[in-house]
């Protein structure tokens, strides 16, 4: 390359056009899939599917999973995986419920006020952070593969939660909490649970896409060696990412407690896989370095829309599992093709 040509375009390198950037983005294609699904179901059941009530239910039922998937997005972008989120959610819920009951008279938190509820929130978040720290420490410092570490904590957190609850669920959840966060609405009918999840997701999207923390997350997932050479504390950053995933699983545990009014020991065994599926369908690469928060939101909604849609048009919703499986494999296949095409250059 001669100096002349490089100076010509060197001073003002153009960004690609919006269109060019859109077409190459995984998120764009998966968003089309979601829109297509909504259109198809709306056409098949024009009176039942495209209703405010239906979309409200959809949003509420995905809120807890969305918060888990948001944390998972950071983890997968670093090239890691977190199988423990569902168990950590239960553990955090259990710690929170235990705390609220212990702080109430007669050991039942049903009539507890906001002071106790806030203590419960703090307990849930701390419960999540503890497991985030365990995961992060073992992965970043002890260099045990994330799959193994979080498979271990997947079992251990569930076991610990069951021990705390003596094997059974706690259902004495403050009514005030259920009314406020679980079933309350604001701004003319938007469920508070959905608002909470949306705020968390927006903050996380800001963190991932505009801050140095987010930039380092991508860098560590893209090339640990390059990140290390650039002076980034890779070990410390990985620990922070798993702490964040634990924190969000703790928050999700508290939300789940408010919505279902039970610790739900048996109810979250596939949350981890659902969260991973959502993140990967949303265009985040299992190999690390690539991903968007918007994609994760879409990825959370695709299985939910399929399930609701099948229910409404009276197709057995077992088909949803098959369809999600197919979309998931297709998404990863596309990602790999893209990578191969790139690496051939």
């Amino acid at each position, binding site marked *: 390359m001669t100096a002349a040509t490089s100076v010509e375009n*060197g001073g003002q*390198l153009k960004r690609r056009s919006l269109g060019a950037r859109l077409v190459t983005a995984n998120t764009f294609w998966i968003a089309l899939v979601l829109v297509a699904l909504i259109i198809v179901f709306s056409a098949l059941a024009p009176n039942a599917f495209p209703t405010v009530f239906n979309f409200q239910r959809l949003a509420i039922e995905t809120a807890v999973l969305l918060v888990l998937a948001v944390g998972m997005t950071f983890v997968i972008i670093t090239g890691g995986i977190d199988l423990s989120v569902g168990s950590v959610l239960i553990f955090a819920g259990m710690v929170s419920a235990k705390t609220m009951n212990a702080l109430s008279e007669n050991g039942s938190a049903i009539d507890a006020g906001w002071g106790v509820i806030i203590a419960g929130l703090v307990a849930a978040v701390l419960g999540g952070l503890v497991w985030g720290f365990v995961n992060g420490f073992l992965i970043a410092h002890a260099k045990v593969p994330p799959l193994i570490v979080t498979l271990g904590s997947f079992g251990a957190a569930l076991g610990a939660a069951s021990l705390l609850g003596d094997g059974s669920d706690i259902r004495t959840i403050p009514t005030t909490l259920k009314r406020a966060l679980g079933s309350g609405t604001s701004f003319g009918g938007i469920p508070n649970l959905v608002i909470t999840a949306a705020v968390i997701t927006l903050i996380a999207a800001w963190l991932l896409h505009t801050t140095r923390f987010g930039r380092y997350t991508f860098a560590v997932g893209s090339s640990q060696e390059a*990140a290390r*050479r650039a*002076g980034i504390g890779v070990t410390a950053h990985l620990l922070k990412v798993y702490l964040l995933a634990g924190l969000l699983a703790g928050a999700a545990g508290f939300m789940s407690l408010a919505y279902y009014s039970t610790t739900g020991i048996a109810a979250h065994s596939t949350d981890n896989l659902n969260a991973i599926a959502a993140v990967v369908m949303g265009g985040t690469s299992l190999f*690390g370095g690539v991903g968007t928060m918007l994609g994760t939101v879409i990825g959370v909604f695709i299985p939910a829309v399929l399930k609701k849609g099948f229910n409404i048009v009276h197709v057995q919703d077992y088909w949803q599992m098959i369809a999600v499986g197919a979309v998931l494999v297709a998404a990863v296949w596309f990602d790999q093709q893209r990578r191969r095409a790139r690496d051939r*250059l």
Partner: protein
Amino acid sequence: MTAPALEAVDLTKTYGSVEALRGASFSVHPGEVVALIGDNGAGKSTLVKCMAGAEQPTSGTIRFEGAETRFDSPTDARRRGIETVYQDLAVAPELDPAANLFLGREIRRPGVLGALGMLDKKAMRRRAAEEFGRLGVALQSIDVPIGSLSGGQRQSVAVARSVVWASKVVFMDEPTAALGVVQRERVLDVIRRVRDEGVAVVLISHNMPEVLSVSDRVEVLRLGRRVARFTAKDATLEDLVGAMTGALHQEEA
């Protein structure tokens, strides 16, 4: 003549019973390219690591801009304007060229948002475009992942990433080893431009024609010692090979 930008005097480095450096000396001045050559095991990498802060010499002196000093870590050396381009040219392939250039040195927004860690992507893209232009790295676009660029462009960005921040000295450990002819020329072009801006460039290479074409001086290392110094335009391939293999011996350590 001005003081050398970086000078090593009588460095020794032992790893257990292995003597990697046995009184090696080296110097490079601002605005010159010095090739550091030697056979495998002559101690080139160890010498560079000692001068770039990645290793501490067992004994000997390092002078930076005329003053005796020590570099506690590569970060310490980087802070003082000494950069290293490693052989494998590690980049983050999923990040765009601007993000790679500023990796670890991100520009933050002014004010509260910046304090919260928010990046000024626009400023980074603009400055990256300027720097790439200055170094003659031609890119069609500033916001595609580096992994999707051609091999030569990727290497140029990788080299540029270190070179941009090197205000005093840049070490290049075989930066062209894995490159084709055209790509190699591009990297050598970057080296010349950096030199012309007054940075001291240390080039480690096994490619003798390349050494003779791009460097101003050549220093030869053999068995952990400097055995010869040449001015590149007066030296021949035979001189270099002779010094490397021990057939020719200029100076006593």
